[in-house]
C-alpha cells in the first residue's frame, strides 16, 4: 500500500489513492475529521463568535453556560468560548511553526550525521546532550530568560524535539546509503549533494511526516503547560494553558473554567495523536510493529 502511494507518479491519482486510504481507515477518517473541525473552529474564530476574548465584563463574571455565553464566562467576565477558540488559534499556529522548524533542523543534522562519518559522533553527542535536558524545563528557562515572544516560544519548544528527529533521519540514512541504487548513483558520477537530495531525502519523508504529527501534539502540550505555569504570553493573549491557570482559584465554584478549555486541549491532542498513529501504521509499518502499537 505504502509503495503504491509513494510510487504512483501522476499527482491526481496519488491524491485519489490518499483519499481512498483515508476513507477506508476509520480511525484515520474520524481523527482527521475531528482535527479539521477543531482547526476550522480556531481559524475562523472571529467569524464564529461576536465576543472579543479580551473584553472584561465584571458584572458577568463566573456565569455558567447560557445562550449569550455558550461556554460561560471566566473570573473577569470574559466569554470562555471566544477565549478557548482564540487560544486554539495560538496553539495550532505554534504547533505548525514548531514542527516545521524542528523538522528542518533535525533533518539537516540527521542527514549530515548519517552521511558524513566524521561528523557523526560529534553531532550525535550534541543530540544526546540535548536529550538529557528535560524539554519542559529547557522551555521554561528559555522563555523566562528571553521573554514570551513567539520566536522564543518556538525556539524553546522546538529545540528539545530536534534530537529525536535527527536520530530518526540518521537511522534512515544509515540504512539507505548502503543500498545498491545509491552506490549506482555514485558510480554514475553524481555529486554528494545530488545523491543526498534525490536518493536519500525521499526515504526520510514518510517517517518525518509521522514524527511531525507527534511534534505538533508535543508543542501544543508544552505551550499549554507554559501558559499554565504563568510563563506563556501576556494575559491579554488567550492561550489554553493560561485560561486554565487563571481558572485555578475559582475551580471549586466554577469548574467549567478549567474543564472546557481542558477538554478542547485534550481533544486537539487526541485527534493529532490518533491521526499520527493511523498515519504511522500506513506510512511506516516497521515502526508500527516495533514501537507504540
Amino acid at each position, binding site marked *: 500500500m505504502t509503495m503504491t502511494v509513494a510510487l504512483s507518479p501522476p499527482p491526481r491519482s496519488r491524491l485519489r489513492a490518499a483519499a481512498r486510504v483515508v476513507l477506508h481507515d476509520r480511525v484515520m477518517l474520524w481523527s482527521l475529521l475531528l482535527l479539521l473541525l477543531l482547526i476550522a473552529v480556531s481559524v475562523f474564530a472571529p467569524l464564529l463568535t461576536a465576543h472579543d476574548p479580551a473584553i472584561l465584563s465584571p458584572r458577568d463574571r463566573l456565569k455558567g453556560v447560557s445562550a449569550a455565553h455558550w461556554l460561560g464566562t471566566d473570573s473577569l467576565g470574559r466569554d470562555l468560548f471566544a477565549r478557548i477558540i482564540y487560544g486554539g488559534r495560538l496553539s495550532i499556529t505554534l504547533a505548525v511553526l514548531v514542527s516545521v522548524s524542528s523538522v528542518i533542523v533535525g533533518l539537516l543534522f540527521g542527514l549530515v550525521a548519517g552521511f558524513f562519518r566524521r561528523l557523526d559522533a560529534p553531532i550525535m553527542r550534541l543530540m544526546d546532550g540535548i536529550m538529557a535536558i528535560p*524539554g*519542559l*524545563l*529547557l522551555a*521554561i528557562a528559555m522563555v523566562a530568560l*528571553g521573554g514570551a515572544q513567539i520566536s522564543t516560544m518556538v525556539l524553546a519548544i522546538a529545540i528539545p524535539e530536534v534530537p529525536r528527529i535527527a536520530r530518526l533521519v540518521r537511522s534512515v540514512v544509515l540504512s539507505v546509503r548502503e543500498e545498491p541504487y545509491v552506490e549506482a548513483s555514485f558510480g554514475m558520477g553524481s555529486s554528494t549533494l545530488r545523491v543526498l537530495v534525490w536518493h536519500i531525502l525521499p526515504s526520510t519523508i514518510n517517517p518525518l511526516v509521522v514524527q511531525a504529527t507527534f511534534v505538533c501534539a508535543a508543542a501544543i502540550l508544552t505551550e499549554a503547560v507554559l501558559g499554565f505555569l504563568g510563563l506563556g504570553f501576556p494575559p491579554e493573549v488567550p492561550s489554553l*494553558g493560561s485560561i486554565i491557570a487563571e481558572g485555578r482559584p475559582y475551580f471549586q465554584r466554577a*469548574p467549567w473554567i478549567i474543564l472546557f478549555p481542558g477538554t478542547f486541549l485534550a481533544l486537539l491532542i487526541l485527534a493529532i495523536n490518533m491521526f499520527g498513529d493511523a498515519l504511522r501504521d500506513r506510512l511506516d509499518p516497521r515502526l508500527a510493529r516495533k514501537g507504540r502499537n
Partner: protein
Amino acid sequence: MLSLVLKRLVAAIPVVLIVATVVFLLLRMAPGDPARVIAGDMASEETIAQIRTNLGLDRPLPVQYGIAMGSLVKGDLGTSIVSKQPVASLIAARIGPTAALALTSLLLTVLIAIPLGVLSAWWHRRTFDRLTMALTVLAFSVPAFVVGYVLILLFSVTLNWFPVQGYAPLTDGVGRFLYQLVLPSLTLATVFVALITRITRASMLDVLGEDFVRTARAKGAPERYVLFRHALRNAAAPIVTVVGVAITTLISGVVVTETIFNIPGVGSLIVDAVLARDYPVVQGTILFFSFIYVFVNLAIDLIYVLLDPRIRY
C-alpha cells in the same frame, strides 16, 4: 561488578560535561537579554548594566563558560539572587517531596502498567487489548494538569475522599504521607502508565512468538508461569530502557504536578525561581535534573547486566 560500576561512572564524566555545555549554550542562545528581564520594565539602563556585571554577563562568552565549568567541577551550581543561598542547598531542602512523588508514581506505574501490558499482549486483538490501547491513547492526550483537576474535582471536592492540595512529610507518619500523595501520584503516573503499558505489550508480543515460550508451554508449564517467569523476564530490557528515556517526561510532569497540588518540591522551586526571575536557580535546577537523567540511565545500564546475564560490557 565493582569495576563495571567504576568504568561506567568514568564514562559518564564526558556526558555530564556535554550536558552542562549544552545547557550553558542554549540558555545564552535564548533571544532577549536576561539582565533586562530580571530588572523588569521600569529599570534604568544603569540598573540593567549593574545586574549584567553582577551576573558576569558582560564578560566574553568563553570566560563565562570557563567560570561556569570551573564552579561546576567544585560542585557549585550557583547562588540564588533572591535568597543569596547556594542553589545546591536550596535543591537539597526541597528534594524530599519531589523524590517521594516521583518514586510513588513510578511504583504505581509498575503496579498498573506491567499487568495491563502483559494481559493485553496475551489477549492480543481481543476486546481487553483494544480497550486498553484506546485508553492509553486517551491518557497520552489529556494533559497532566487537566487530569489533576478532574481527580481533585471527583475525589476531593465531590466525594471528599482525599485532601485537595498539600503535602505531608514522612515525619507526620507513613499513613498521612501516603494519603496526601495518592492524587498527585495518580496524576503524574497517568502518562507513564500509558507509555509503559504500550511498551510492555509490544515487547511481550515480540517475546511470546519465541521458541522458548513454545517449549515452556509444551513442557506443560502453567500459563501464569510462562507469562511472568519466561516471557516477561525476557521482555524486561526494552521496558527498562523506556523507563530510563522517559525520566525526562517524569521530571517535566513533576514540575506540573507540584504546581497543581502545592507540593513544596524542586519542581515548584524552579517555577518560583522563574517567576522571581532568579536566573541562577533556574539554570542550576535544570543542570541538576539533567544530571539525574544521566545517572538514572547509567544505573539502568547496570540493571541490564543483572536482568540479562548475556549482556557484558
